């Protein structure tokens, strides 16, 4: 690695203040610290430090997202070939189609988001921070595959600037940036974000997978179907060709839906990575599932035809839509979530309850996970305030008791 070090050292003066490319100082330093771990040593306080840093933390999250992402890519192709009546197209074709369809969105999300981060870091004179590495992959994963690339660009730019940079960058934001991006898309371009045409790629990707959609095709997601179900009885959920699907299908994830959110199984693998490494809080994650289950159970007990989604079994509720994804990857964002240990239980539980509540009782939104997390992001500081205040009151009481 000496050669790389030498090369970087040689290039460095150009990027320092006064150099030819001084406006790219933060970009250069970001790249430099990414490639070669800096030799910065402790100058005050403790002389040794834990090996973990935020680069490592973010890498672990990205690693945890991989199973869901890879499955999502495959599922894009699977749904596509199913829709054009070529279900026998092989695994490789399906995966490649999915990759071609998704890659532009990943690239755009990263280029736009990181570009803004670089500019922000340069203006503030900060080091480049790693937060967007996770956000950038989350954004394409929580959007329907048919979201136009330019929309992703606009929404990402809006979210990064107004939900993150204006608050001070990574670690300072109040709302989860990826979810703000999705919210901007959802409220700005509702027709592209829900309905029958959003979740299954029917057009060819870069010339691959051309074909006409079969007559039996309906692009509605299981939750979308449940929401418009009329009459008594549990709605029978179907795949895009009208064939019935079971809870197991929904758990494994070969169903239409937002790219990364379909496979509960893969999401749980990611959850295991996050929990084993200690990167995410099991308190938040667990209580989201508990909250969701409890709310589903209550709704299911008092199921009515007026709210057809309430007829779904609680376990289906947890497997369908973005619920599991939100529980594992969105609610556990430490920056926007509750930060006190007691607060984490309350925060997670309420996200679970709200997500199902919105999903069932608000006809306008077929899915409530995004709104639930954003809503609780706003309330997390209040929850923490109450928890910390209990500590403060305990201290005041103690002082009063001894000063008597």
């Amino acid at each position, binding site marked *: 690695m000496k050669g790389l070090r030498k090369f970087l050292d040689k290039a460095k003066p150009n990027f320092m203040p006064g150099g030819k490319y001084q406006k790219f100082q933060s970009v250069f330093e970001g790249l430099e610290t990414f490639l070669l771990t800096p030799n910065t040593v402790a100058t005050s306080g403790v002389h*040794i430090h*834990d090996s*973990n840093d935020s680069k490592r*933390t973010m890498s672990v999250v990205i690693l945890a997202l991989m199973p869901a992402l890879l499955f999502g890519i495959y599922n894009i192709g699977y749904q596509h070939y199913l829709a054009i009546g070529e279900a026998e197209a092989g695994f490789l074709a399906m995966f490649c189609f999915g990759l071609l369809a998704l890659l532009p969105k990943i690239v755009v999300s990263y280029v736009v988001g990181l570009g803004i981060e670089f500019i922000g870091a340069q203006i503030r004179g900060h080091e480049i921070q790693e937060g967007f590495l996770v956000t950038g992959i989350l954004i394409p994963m929580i959007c329907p595959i048919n979201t136009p690339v330019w929309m992703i660009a606009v929404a990402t730019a809006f979210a990064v600037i107004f939900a993150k940079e204006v608050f001070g960058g990574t670690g300072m934001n109040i709302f989860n940036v990826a979810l703000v991006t999705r919210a901007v898309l959802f409220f700005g371009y509702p027709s592209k974000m829900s309905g029958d045409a959003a979740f299954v790629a029917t057009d060819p990707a870069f010339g691959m997978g051309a074909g006409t959609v079969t007559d039996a095709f309906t692009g509605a997601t299981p939750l979308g179907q449940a929401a418009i179900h009329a009459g008594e009885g549990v709605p029978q959920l179907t795949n895009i060709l009208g064939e019935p699907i079971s809870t197991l299908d929904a758990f494994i994830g070969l169903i239409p839906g937002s790219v990364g959110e379909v496979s509960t199984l893969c999401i749980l693998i990611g959850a295991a990575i996050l929990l084993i490494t200690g*990167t995410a809080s099991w308190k938040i994650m667990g209580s989201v599932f508990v909250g969701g289950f409890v709310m589903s159970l209550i709704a299911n007990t008092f199921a009515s035809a007026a709210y057809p989604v309430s007829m779904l079994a609680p376990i289906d509720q947890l497997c369908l839509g973005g619920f599991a994804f939100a529980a594992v990857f969105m609610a556990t964002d430490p920056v926007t979530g*509750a*930060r006190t*240990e007691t607060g984490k239980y309350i925060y997670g539980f309420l996200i679970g309850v709200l997500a199902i509540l919105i999903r069932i009782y608000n006809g306008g939104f077929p899915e409530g996970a995004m709104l639930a997390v954003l809503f609780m992001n706003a309330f997390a500081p209040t929850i923490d305030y109450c928890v910390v205040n209990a500590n403060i009151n*305990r201290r005041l009481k103690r002082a009063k008791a001894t000063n008597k």
Partner: protein
Amino acid sequence: MSNFKLKKGVNLSLEGAVSGTSTTQVSAKRYAVVPDDFTGIIPRLEVKEGDKVLAGDALYHDKNHPQIKISSPVSGTIEAIERGERRKILSIVILPDSENQFKVFNAKDAKELMLESGLWAAMRQRPYDIVPDPDVAPRDIFVTAFDSAPLAAPMSLQVAGKEEYLQKGIDALGKMTEGKVYVGCAPEAELSLKGCEVNTFAGPHPAGNAGVQLANVKPVNKGETVWTLDAVTVARLGELIATKKLPVETIVAVVGENVTTPKLVKCTMGADIASLTAGNIADVAGSRIISGNVLTGVKVAANGYLQFPYRQITVIPEVKNDAEFMGWASLSPKKFSLYRSFTCRLFGTRKPFSFDSKLNGGERAIIMSGEYDRMLPMDIYAEYLIKAIIAFDIDKMEQLGIYEVAPEDFALAEFADTSKLPLQRIVREGLDKLRKEMN
């Protein structure tokens, strides 16, 4: 008496621990007193270069409380008074006589003896973690009788055979407070003392910290003052009362990865590092020499001195691997972390690890939650307190327990911090600013 079981914190295992209890006597070439070690004291010199002093003679006193004196550990000649920016006194260097001559104190009262002999400055008070104000009577006095810091030599070694002096010291302290004298022991090294409450603390570091012990026994409230000191100082106090001479002997653990043979050295306080480590450091240029332990100690030059209150010299490598390619993705089991995303957790972390002084990352805003709390066995929301200190919101700082803490209590949190924030410095500066504001 109660037995406390503390769960939070961690025992870090470093290479270069000392084995056995045999000590070697070393007489140093130079001795020094570093005024920065006595937080809260503004030095006013009583000596000048070339003066002759006895062990126990005052070198300087506090500007605000002239009765607090800092004394010389050895008899000899003041060789130099080193000054830094704005003539701040960095150190007072003493060239020792061949034989140590002691000043004999004649004060009757234990408190006066302490003040006059300089032993007073070995105590700290909460709030503010400074040398105690002699005009304020403490609510209680807390004595720590074990050192849980990484690579520390057992404190029992220091007080071995001095049980009588310990008891005398406890008796004297008992008269200085209306409250109690609490002694915090490790479960395996419980002291039997009278006239005080002995508690045991089981659990990882920072169980030996005075702040942690007092927070679990009887926390400090606003408006209260407690004194904290260690058993070594108590034994010295007993000896001082008995012999009227200032005890200056100490046992120093010379430890750490870059020490060729880790050993225990018997010497006088303030000894120079060169004498203590002579020929015993593997790679001087690539080493960081720390007076104290790796968590709270101060970095000193190879020609520096053993600073107060440390009884330990730790030598670790400065930077081990130069230019590590994508170090953040490393799967090396040699890298220590509290997170299980590092492979070291698979192979066990009890065995000694090799640490260097690398920061292992860049400074960030606080991202991960609960990291500080896991390292602080006190009923305090550490992250919120740190944020209040950074914002210097005095009301919030008081409410969140600033009076109960000292920088050393945050040392482990600083070690564990993913965001690499200088927590001890933040707390120290916060305490100093707060004291200025309140007085």
